């Protein structure tokens, strides 16, 4: 900051005091593009979706007035033919699937991240590359690949039938297990990468201190390691949960029996049913639930989670 008594000739380049006009130009140049980007590609479409959800669908699928709450009451289960819990169940099912996926990813990702961080530097590079490689392939193709891997002639199916876990000559999908396997494969990297970077920064001397003070392995994990990796773990869980809420391709291809989830409910409304306002309402409610959950976490758990663990 320029001092008041500074001589005029002595210009301080960094943090120099600007005239309001120059200040405005400078802020516009630096933060302007970002604001523009967010406005055009996020804010405007979002507002359009919200606005649309209050409109009415015409007989031929056209969107128009009057303004109405009908889309929301229908979503809550109160349709033209009385109460039907179809859509509340759709929402619940999606949330359960996302929560289950997060849990499965956590159970697999925590040991994996720990394993990778203990590898020698070269091994770490290779392991991290292996974690990321599936992203080079389209999700749809990866999911079809699981159909082959779980097919009737696959090794997995033969092993399962040999162990008496499945009938011989039958594929292992569609099944709930196959759905979660596919979800795990799709979302594991989102959890492993942030968790790995937390593990990388872990101060092992704190774990040793806990050991030295009489903590056995589970308590070292709980009191010395978990509090340190918690931020990365939660970031990873959020990164898994949010896209998993809207996922429907994997349950479709591996779960059979076309279960309606948030994702395909929205797709259906915008597509075959040509009911954009209702689709917009579903999309907005799904987003609102996730946002509320996150802000609730940020307000309460974010601060207390570390202490709550102790």
């Amino acid at each position, binding site marked *: 900051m320029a001092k008041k008594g500074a001589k005029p000739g002595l210009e301080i380049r960094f943090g120099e005091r600007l005239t309001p006009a120059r200040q405005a130009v400078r802020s516009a140049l630096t933060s302007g593009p970002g604001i523009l980007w967010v406005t055009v590609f996020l804010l405007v479409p979002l507002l359009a979706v919200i606005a649309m959800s209050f409109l009415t669908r015409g007989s031929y699928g056209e969107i128009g007035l009057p303004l109405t709450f009908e889309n929301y009451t229908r979503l809550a289960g109160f349709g033209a033919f009385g109460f039907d819990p179809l859509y509340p169940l759709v929402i619940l099912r999606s949330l359960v699937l996302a929560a289950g996926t997060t849990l499965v990813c956590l159970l697999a990702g925590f040991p994996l991240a720990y394993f990778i961080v203990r590898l020698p530097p070269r091994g770490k590079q290779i392991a991290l590359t292996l974690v990321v490689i599936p992203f080079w392939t389209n999700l749809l193709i990866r999911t079809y690949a699981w159909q082959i891997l779980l097919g009737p002639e696959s090794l997995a199916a033969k092993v399962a039938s040999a162990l008496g876990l499945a009938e011989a000559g039958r594929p292992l999908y569609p099944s709930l297990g196959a759905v979660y396997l596919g979800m795990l494969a799709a979302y594991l990297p989102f959890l492993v990468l942030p968790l790995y970077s937390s593990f990388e920064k872990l101060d092992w001397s*704190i774990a*040793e201190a806990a050991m*030295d003070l009489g*903590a*056995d392995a589970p308590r070292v994990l709980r009191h*010395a390691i978990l509090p340190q990796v918690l931020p990365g773990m939660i970031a990873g869980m959020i990164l898994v949960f949010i896209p998993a809420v809207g996922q429907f391709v994997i349950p479709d291809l591996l779960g059979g029996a076309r279960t309606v989830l948030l994702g395909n409910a929205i797709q259906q409304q915008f597509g075959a049913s040509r009911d954009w306002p209702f689709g917009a309402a579903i999309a907005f409610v799904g987003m609102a639930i996730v946002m509320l959950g996150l802000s609730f976490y940020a307000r309460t758990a974010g601060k207390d989670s570390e202490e709550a663990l102790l």
Partner: protein
Amino acid sequence: MAVEPGEPKGRQGAAGSALATSVEVEGVRREFGSFVALDGVSLAIRPGEFLTLLGPSGCGKTTLLRILAGLDVADAGKVRIDGQDVGEIPAHRRPVNTVFQSYALFPHMSVRDNVAFGLKMKKVPAAEVVRRVDRMLDLVQIATFADRKPAQLSGGQKQRVALARALINEPKVLLLDEPLGALDSKLRKELQVELLALQRRLGITFIFVTHDQEEALVMSDRIAVMRAGRIEQLGDAEEIYERPRTRFVSQFLGTCNLIEGKATRREGLAVLVETPFGELRVEGHGAPATPTPDSPRETLTLAIRPEKVRMSPAGEEGENRVPVTVRELIYIGSETHYLLDAPGGAILTAYAMNARVGSQGFDLGKAATAVLPPAGLLVLDD
């Protein structure tokens, strides 16, 4: 220096249980790949003793401490604590606690919770935990910070928390890994005194790792000087300083003049050594390798501390007198440090008390005589 004057250091611990050992290390070896961190270390530590492991970085002192704590495992050798072989006992069940170099406080816990941690792990009843934590916080004078998090503490305060967190478990042995290393020198000296007083009061065996020779001299009952995975010399401060047995020990603790020579003959307890300075008479103790008349021409290294070298006027004749020129002098008030050019291109260092009123009479570039008293000259092992 000593916190409780009168009683010579080192006796208290040994008194009462003269034969018992608190910690016994026997032939401990540890390798990391091709690097030998500990090369067969053996050591017996008395109950209540303040023992310092002193050495440069990489000498194995921290590795030895970690093996005692159970945080590292020896490749060979035995460790007994209170007579019990702890080889199979994991860190969390050993009767030792550690003060870590970086303190390793739990960042998400308050000072109070940090200190209480060990007791909670042992499932001590809550009321007793509170009582003992309060007492410990008072003992190390951190009661006023009890509710702060470690990030809000200064280095000295963190150090006290680390100490309290370890001591509250009433360990049989407290291991301290350069606990004062990160502090400024004033605070360091204060805490040295406090740490010593605490150790005397609690009577717990302290094993203290440092690379600071002055700290080692001030604090320890005994010092184990380590080098390249071995204990080079073990003894009390005076023994280590006054009678170093090897070049390394003589140089690592303080400054020491080394003189190469060949033993020619002995006269009673004294040895006569032919050196570039002429024949020197050596009467210092701690010279187990003193040559016998049977092998009189053995090559030797003599050592003499700078403060044992006496400055005399030029031209003085007599035994163990070396004609020198003052090459450099550093006046530091109570004494003057001289760098002297000696015969054969050697340089001698002498510290002389400025006992005379006015000029000491040894000026830069002038000739003088360095007197090497026979009792101050030692024969080193190597």
